[in-house]
């Protein structure tokens, strides 16, 4: 296992080392000590490796991640796993604003709460939050799934496109063009698979409500101008 102590080693060296990894590398286990809120830790990794970060991280941890599994044993700052492509990012604590922003694939699991704008502009990522999420989450969400075991704040799914939102607790309010939708068998199935993949058990899919786009604002119509 490679252990990098960020109290002694510059961030640049860590990230360069991670970027140098190729598919099929045997250096698959990495540990990062003393992250102390530094930004862009393990950003841009593209190899099937495990990175355990022991402590709290700053902005954009695991940004644009591909293939890797990155676990933050602490809380994470804004933009965690932004634009993630594949792989898995797990935050053991809470995540700040814009977690999983514009993510295109892979899975982001937040074991604590996520702040505002979680899943903003998401484009295919799956996000599972065990706690609550803040206001304006899934704003302009394009595709992918956002699963929330707790409550959602104001204006959930504002201007949403085709992303699917599943919330177990309450939703303070829905944003423009976002409506509650029926949970059909295929949605129970999909949600069940997501929960399983995220290692969540003991909750039933029937406890969730589904939200998505009413598709009324897809094409401009002056009579909808009040909706914005």
């Amino acid at each position, binding site marked *: 296992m490679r252990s990098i102590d960020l109290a002694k080693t510059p961030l640049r060296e860590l990230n360069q080392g991670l970027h140098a990894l190729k598919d099929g590398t045997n250096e698959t286990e990495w540990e990062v000590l003393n992250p102390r809120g530094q930004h862009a830790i393990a*950003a*841009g990794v593209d190899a099937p490796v495990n990175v355990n970060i022991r402590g709290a991280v700053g*902005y954009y941890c695991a940004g644009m991640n591909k293939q890797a599994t990155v676990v933050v044993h602490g809380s994470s700052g804004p933009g965690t796993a932004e634009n993630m*492509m594949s792989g898995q990012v797990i935050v053991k604590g809470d995540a700040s604003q814009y977690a999983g922003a514009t993510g295109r694939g892979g899975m982001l699991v937040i074991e604590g709460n996520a702040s505002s704008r979680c899943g903003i*502009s998401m484009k295919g990522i799956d996000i599972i939050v065990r706690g609550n999420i803040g206001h304006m989450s899934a704003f302009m969400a394009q595709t992918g799934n956002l699963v929330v075991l707790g409550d959602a704040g104001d204006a959930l799914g504002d201007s949403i496109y085709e992303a699917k939102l599943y919330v177990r607790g309450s939703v303070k309010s829905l944003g423009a063009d976002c409506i509650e939708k029926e949970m059909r068998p295929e949605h129970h199935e999909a949600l069940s698979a997501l929960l399983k993949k995220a290692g969540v058990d003991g909750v039933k899919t029937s406890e969730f409500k589904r939200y998505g786009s009413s598709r009324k604002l897809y094409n401009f119509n002056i009579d909808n101008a009040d909706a914005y």
Partner: protein
Amino acid sequence: MTYHNPPTTPRKSATFDDYTLSEIRRAAQTGIYDIRGAGAKRKLPHFDDLLFLGASMSRYPLEGYRERCSTAVTLGTRYAKKPIELKTPITIAGMSFGALSGNAKEALGRGATLAGTSTTTGDGGMTPEERGHSEKLVYQYLPSRYGMNPDDLRRADAIELVVGQGAKPGGGGMLLGQKISDRVAEMRTLPKGIDQRSSCRHPDWTGPDDLEIKILELREITDWEKPIYIKVGGARPYYDVALAVKAGADVVVVDGMQGGTAATQEVFIEHVGQPTLACIRPAVQALQDLGMHRKVQLIVSGGIRNGADVAKALALGADAVAVGTAALVALGDNDPALEDEYRKLGTTAGAYDDWHEGRDPAGITTQNPELAQRLDPVRAGRRLANYLKVMTLELQTIARAAGHNHVHNLEPEDLCALTLEAAAMARVPLAGTSWIPGQGNF
């Protein structure tokens, strides 16, 4: 009746002119604001209001064709391990695949490459054709992040973080349903045929302090190799440029209000932002005040049409320029040879600006395969290269006449202004006087 005998000539209002009246009728009938392409059409103080003085007793000129006048420019020398080296300071501005056809994007890449300069992606991501045909490709990082991925980021030669655009500082991209073809929809991860309004703010940072961290992330992902540009619309050029430098930019792009767009509300194009001419000196001043002029390079765009415009922008302190609309015209946009077809669209060559509708008879601003295949990317690329080379020669002609062996040696002292407005904005004397309005006490 008797009051008008003899009759007076029917007189139209300067305030309620024909265009204004037609716009009122259009709004009343459709209930939607006017959306169009291209830049501001109103008359604005511009480079035409400046003149070069040329060499005389106190300065000697350089011999055309014989004495060297270099046009080479290096962009991204501040932090990037691999700065961009260009043969000419005239670059191609970011225009999206989606707004433009695949053939048009390919032609831009071919033309830029032949002329030794860079071209730029746009809102909608990088296409393989474009990457393949562009020796130097700048990859835009936009609020929408359509198609954004780390592989293209690493394939790019530079990254341009777009904060704003001159045609619409504060506005996001627009691509109407007619142009959302299968391929465009897939690249943007959106349903086909919807009116797509991309966001006006970045999703994961808000102010210059966050931006600094965002740039750190992009540098880390690309191992500090790529120059990072920040593009701003001509809103508050002094502060915007100073903050871009603070945020860690290698290059700042300032796009004035004449800058073109693929689709924006007319009210936005014509009424928001400052003219290009008014943006350059404050931008340069910000760099000078920070000791960063020529260390962080400045690219100016918005209404650049010929070598004289380029020379004037450089003389005011820019390191390079970018062209959008003019490049499209070089490819064949608004060509009078297509007049019959423009007539059918209710317009005329030179006025066609419904670029958002996707019905471009020149095959440039369209996703319709039949129209798009009218544009031969090889021939159009050649035309663009010719145009870029002519502009470069014109630029050199002026620089030599002013006695400079590098186009970056052009300076404000080489210029005078024809109007008070231009003199104040460009901070050069009104012709025939030593008066620079706004400098000193009057």
